[in-house]
Each structure stands twice: as C-alpha cells, then as structure tokens.
C-alpha cells in the first residue's frame, strides 16, 4: 500500500473539441471565462459573514456540516437548494444561517416561511431565540396581512386559503423557505400550485425525504426550485425511470442524474457526522396500571354518561374533551364534572355522587407510579407533559409536598416568565411540568426523561414532546414513560396503536410521512368515536387493532420505499462526494 495521487480530468468547457476544431474565442471572452473561474474559486473559499455573530449566542451550537451547507447554498447554488439532510441534523439551523446571511448581506429583504401548522410556533421561536430575527405569524397580535410583514411565517394549510393565497401571490418575495417540503411533491395539489405561482428569487426546500413513492416526486420538487433543470416531465421519465410507475432508476443514467442533483440538493447523512455528533436512543416504558376501585368507578360512570349523550347526538367535540379530561387525573376529572353539570349533561344528584367518589381519591395511582419512577432515577431531571392545567397544578402540589423542586411551563406565561422557568429547570429544579402548548419550540437537551402523564391523541404531538429533549446536543439515551389505566381509551391507544407501530422510537421523518394529514381534531374524533360506539370490549379491541394494523402496514410500505429510493438516488451522494463527482 502506498500513497499516490489520483488525477481525474473532465472537460467541462469542451476544450479538447474546440482545439480539435480550431474554435477559438477572442481575448476578452477568454478573460471573462478566466475571471469567472477565479471568482468561483474565491467564492468557494469565502466565509459567511454571520457565523461569528450567530455563534456568540449561547443557545445555539453550529456544526461544520450546517455551516458548509449554508456556504454552498450561497456561494455555489445561487441561493436556492433542496436541503435534504437526514432527520435530526439541523436543517432548520441551516436555513436560519442562510436566511440571516441573505438578510444581513442585503441579498434578501423579505422572506416567507411555509411550515406545517404544528411547526409554525417552533420556527418563530427558534428564529427569535437563535438568530435574533422576529418573524410574524398569523396568530400574532400585530399581524395585519401577508403584504404588511417582511418576515413572515405561514402554515401550509393557511397559505392556500384563497384570500391569503392571493396576497402571497401578488408579492415579490426575495426568499421562500418551505419546511417539510415533501408535502408539496404532488403537482396537482393546491400547495404545489401556490408555490409554483409565487414570485421569488431564492427558494429553500427542506425535507429529509425528497422521494417517497416514485421519481416523479423528485421531479416535481426540482421543478419548484429550478424549473427545467431535469427537462420536461416526459424527457425525465424516459431518461431516468426504468419502469412505467417510475419506481426504479435507470442505472445507465444514475450518475448523470446524481450530477444534476448535486447542483441543487445538499444531503448530509448521520453516518457522515457521527465523528462529532453523538446520537442517542429513545427507550419507551409503557405502564398500563390497575386503577383503584374508586378510580375505576369514576371513569366508568362518566364514560357511560358520555356514551349516552353521544348516542343522543350531543356535540362530539365537546364530549371528546370530557373523555380526555377524565383520562388525565382526578383533578381534571373534577373540571370535567363541573363542565358536564354546567351544560346539563349531569343532574345535580349525579354530579354530587360523582364528586363524592372523586373526593375520596387523595392521590392518583398514576401519580404514585410517577413518584416511584422519579425515585428510581435518583436525581435525574424529568420533563412531565400533561394536556391540562388542572393536572399540572395537581402534580405540582403533590411533587412539591414530596420534596421535589418543580417548575411549571404553560401557554399562559409571558415570555420573561417562560425564560425564567427554563432557567430554573436548567439550573435548580429537578422537574418541569409542561403543557403541550407551553412546550412547543423549547429545547431541553439537558434533561433525558420525558413523561407522558396523559396521552395526546395526535401521534405527532408525541414527537413534539419527545423532540424537546431528544435532539442534537442530548448526551444520554432518552427515557420515555407513558402511563394509562387498563381498559381506558388511553390504554387502547397506547397498547394497540402507539406501541404497536413503535411510535415512541420512530424518527420524525417517518412519523411525518405516516401522519402528514393528521390533526388533533381528526385523530381525536376518530379514536373517540371508535371507543364510545363500541358495544363491548371485544369490538373495541378489534377496532383499535384494525387501525393499528393499517398504520403498521402503511409504515412498512413507507419505510421500505423511502429507504430503497435513498439508496438508489442518493447512494454515495453527499457533501464530501459531490466535489469528486463534479470532476
């Protein structure tokens, strides 16, 4: 074995042929070509002006691949690219660096970010806390209309509403960033058409899965970015697809396609960065608990009342909230009873009887289990999530009484109170109890235990919770504790759905594919209807098992398809090899 130098030549400018045919350019043109090469070479070396100011912010740690990707987009890709890093490598950070660089250098004055509804707040918060950039979103008090704000975040779904879409299309955007851009892969959707019609100079499409089902999706994405790069659709299909369904790549033109893609796509894999980023695991612990007699009686009696009103045609969403409240804690159950009495779903006698049972429950069985778990983990920090303020306040009281230091985090706190609570959790408090709304967008990598004290009925919300602690910078494996009482709706969702598809350890990329159209209302109502309309336990289990099987099959299909395409199209396609492939 000895070192040698491998020299490869490529004749990008067709010099050989030109010499052969004695085709020469004039001196001025030659000088322009040389100047272009020299400028390109200088630009490749040129650093971004915002890096040191971003790095001075302690809440952000930049990694080499993120800086490198941002440099490439600015200096080599002309400001438009598909950022297709594997999940968890910080595509949002890369986009943040790029947009700040473009704003500071004067290349962009107005920027629109299109994100899935569940990530709008997270984007806004990350840009504010990490990049000191204030983006406005539709729900802000100072929001006017899409034409009035230079830095704007819109959800995919809000953007396609006719009024918003008209405003968005009329404007000349300097930069449009689309998060989870694979949702625009279908050219017949309103989202895709809207983006195609919007005027802009620079486009960043962020996705970990540029192809899910067929090569046509990749074509559609590239068309959104740089139309014409891959020719017309039929030219692309004939040249690069090996079958009618476009599910396999023509091996003869694989290199050619990769070469074209290497000028618009940046993809970093976990394998490439493992030298400097430690990835940890997620370990789920699901505890289905036996409730006390009073807990059982309380839950069953209220569920019977809910079922009765459901059968009588009472508003489903309202009943669903009642069912969710009684699944959380005895304290939230008391709120549910109060609501039911107020809306005349319970008589005074029924209310008194049920409140009496609730009053006998001094501590929930789930709480005892939670205390044991915290005890077992010695002094480890815990991030406990609940959907309800009543449960949050109850847990705070019980855990404080038990001698734990606790801090609360919820949507009613103002910005400085939130910051104070985070600092307290980081420095002093062992436990933070957070509502889902309060927890969005916050990062708690210094904690590695997450408790789902009650269960969100939207699977994406699980990821939002766990994603607060399981992200770049987490040094330990993350323990996820889930609690539910046997034979309750939460137990069925946990056992027959979430555990079955290994939801707690699924990556965001796969989750997002599986549940891309899922909303709280959609899944919640679905689960609730299945539960409340089942005649007996057998029927109930069958219904949930069927949903679980469907999810599982779809998951397998998606995972297989995505991995197959990643291997075919992106194999050996990375930042480090792009350069060599261009040779």
């Amino acid at each position, binding site marked *: 074995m000895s070192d040698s130098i491998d*020299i490869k030549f490529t004749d990008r*400018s067709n*010099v050989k042929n*030109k010499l052969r045919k004695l085709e*020469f350019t004039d001196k*001025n043109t030659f000088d322009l070509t040389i100047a272009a090469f020299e400028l390109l070479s200088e630009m490749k070396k040129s650093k971004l002006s915002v890096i040191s100011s971003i790095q001075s912010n302690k809440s952000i740690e930049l990694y080499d691949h993120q800086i490198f990707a941002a440099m490439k987009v*600015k200096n080599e890709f*002309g400001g438009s690219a598909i950022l297709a890093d594997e999940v968890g490598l910080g595509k949002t950070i890369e986009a943040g660096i790029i947009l700040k660089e473009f704003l500071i*250098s004067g290349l962009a004055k107005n920027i629109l970010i299109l994100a899935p509804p569940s990530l709008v707040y997270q984007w806004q918060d990350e840009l504010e806390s990490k990049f000191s950039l204030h983006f406005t979103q539709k729900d802000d008090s100072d929001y006017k209309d899409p034409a009035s704000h230079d830095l704007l975040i819109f959800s995919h779904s809000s953007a396609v509403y006719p009024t918003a879409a008209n405003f968005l299309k009329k404007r000349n955007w300097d930069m449009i960033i689309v998060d989870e851009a694979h949702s625009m892969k279908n050219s017949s959707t309103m989202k895709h058409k809207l983006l195609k019609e919007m005027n802009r100079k620079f486009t960043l499409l962020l996705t970990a899965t540029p192809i899910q089902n067929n090569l046509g999706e990749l074509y559609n994405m590239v068309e959104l970015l740089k139309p014409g790069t891959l020719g017309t659709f039929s030219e692309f299909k004939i040249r690069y697809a090996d079958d009618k369904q476009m599910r396999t790549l023509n091996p003869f033109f694989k290199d050619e396609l990769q070469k074209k893609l290497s000028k618009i796509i940046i993809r970093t894999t976990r394998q490439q960065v493992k030298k400097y980023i430690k990835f940890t695991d997620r370990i789920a612990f699901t505890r289905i608990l036996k409730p006390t007699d009073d807990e059982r009686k309380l839950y069953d009696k209220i569920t019977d009342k809910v079922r009765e009103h459901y059968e009588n045609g009472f508003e489903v969403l309202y009943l669903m909230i009642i069912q969710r409240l009684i699944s959380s804690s005895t304290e939230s159950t008391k709120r549910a009873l109060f609501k039911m009495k107020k809306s005349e779903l319970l008589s005074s006698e029924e209310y008194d009887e049920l409140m009496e049972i609730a009053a006998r429950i001094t501590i929930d069985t789930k709480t005892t289990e939670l205390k044991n778990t915290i005890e077992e983990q010695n002094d480890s920090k815990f991030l406990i999530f609940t959907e309800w303020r009543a449960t949050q306040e109850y847990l705070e009281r019980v855990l404080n009484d038990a001698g734990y230091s606790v801090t609360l985090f919820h949507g009613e706190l103002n910005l400085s109170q939130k910051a104070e609570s985070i600092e307290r959790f980081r420095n002093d408090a062992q436990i933070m109890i957070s509502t889902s709304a309060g927890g969005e967008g916050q990062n708690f990598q210094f904690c590695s235990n997450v408790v789902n004290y009650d269960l969100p009925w939207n699977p994406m919300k699980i990821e939002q919770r766990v994603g607060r602690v399981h992200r770049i910078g987490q040094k330990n494996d993350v323990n996820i504790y889930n609690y539910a009482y046997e034979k309750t709706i939460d137990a069925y969702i946990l056992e027959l759905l979430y555990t079955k598809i290994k939801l707690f350890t699924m990556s965001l990329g796969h989750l997002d594919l599986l549940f891309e159209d899922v909303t709280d209302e959609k899944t919640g109502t679905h689960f609730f209807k299945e539960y409340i309309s089942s005649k007996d336990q057998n029927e109930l289990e069958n219904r949930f098992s069927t949903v679980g099987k469907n999810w599982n099959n779809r998951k397998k299909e998606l995972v297989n398809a995505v991995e197959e395409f990643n291997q075919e199209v992106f194999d050996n396609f990375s930042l480090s090899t792009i*350069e060599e492939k261009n040779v």
Partner: protein
Amino acid sequence: MSEIKNFVNELVLGYFSKINASVHENNGLYEFTVPDNFKKIFRDDVLKITFDENLSKFTNYELVSPGNPILSVILNECIKFGPAVIGRPTSHDLESPIIRFYFYAWFKFCDI
C-alpha cells in the same frame, strides 16, 4: 470580501459589454437593457442592479454579490464560453501562433 466585490463588478460589467447590453449608470445604480437573444436566460428586459449593499437597501435595485441569481447566470454563461484563445505574441519574435487554454483539475489522494 472587497476583492470579491471587485471581481464581481468587473465580471458583470464585462459580461454585459460582451453581449452588447446597453447600460445606464447613475451613482452606482445600473440599468442594463438585455438584448433580445438573452432575455430568456435573464427572464427580464431590463435589469436594475447595484454592487453596493447600502444602495440596495434603500432602492429597488437588486444587489449583485455572491448568492445573487443574476450573478449565477453570468458565471454559468462565462464558463460556457470556453476557455481557449489563439494569438500571436507581440513581445516575442515567434513564427507560430500560441494557443492558450485554461483548465483545472481536482487532485485526490488515494491508496493503491
């Protein structure tokens, strides 16, 4: 960075001169009228540009600096011209013309 600015400035002005675009300059603000056969690649008839970021901030003139799409187009066009030129040196008494061409190579260390 200022070196890059100069490179950009020279390249852009040189390119527009080569394609015979008419230019109107006013205190660092440039308006180029693009010849018909180049309108397709620039997707515009008139390009209003500046190389000064301060001027760009307060006007509707587009800043042309690394990252700008107009610059990307020009870079790609210039590279396509083909880096081969023929000439007769004036400082030497040579009979044969000289062909000069530009190429670049990537060097990669590898094991055999």
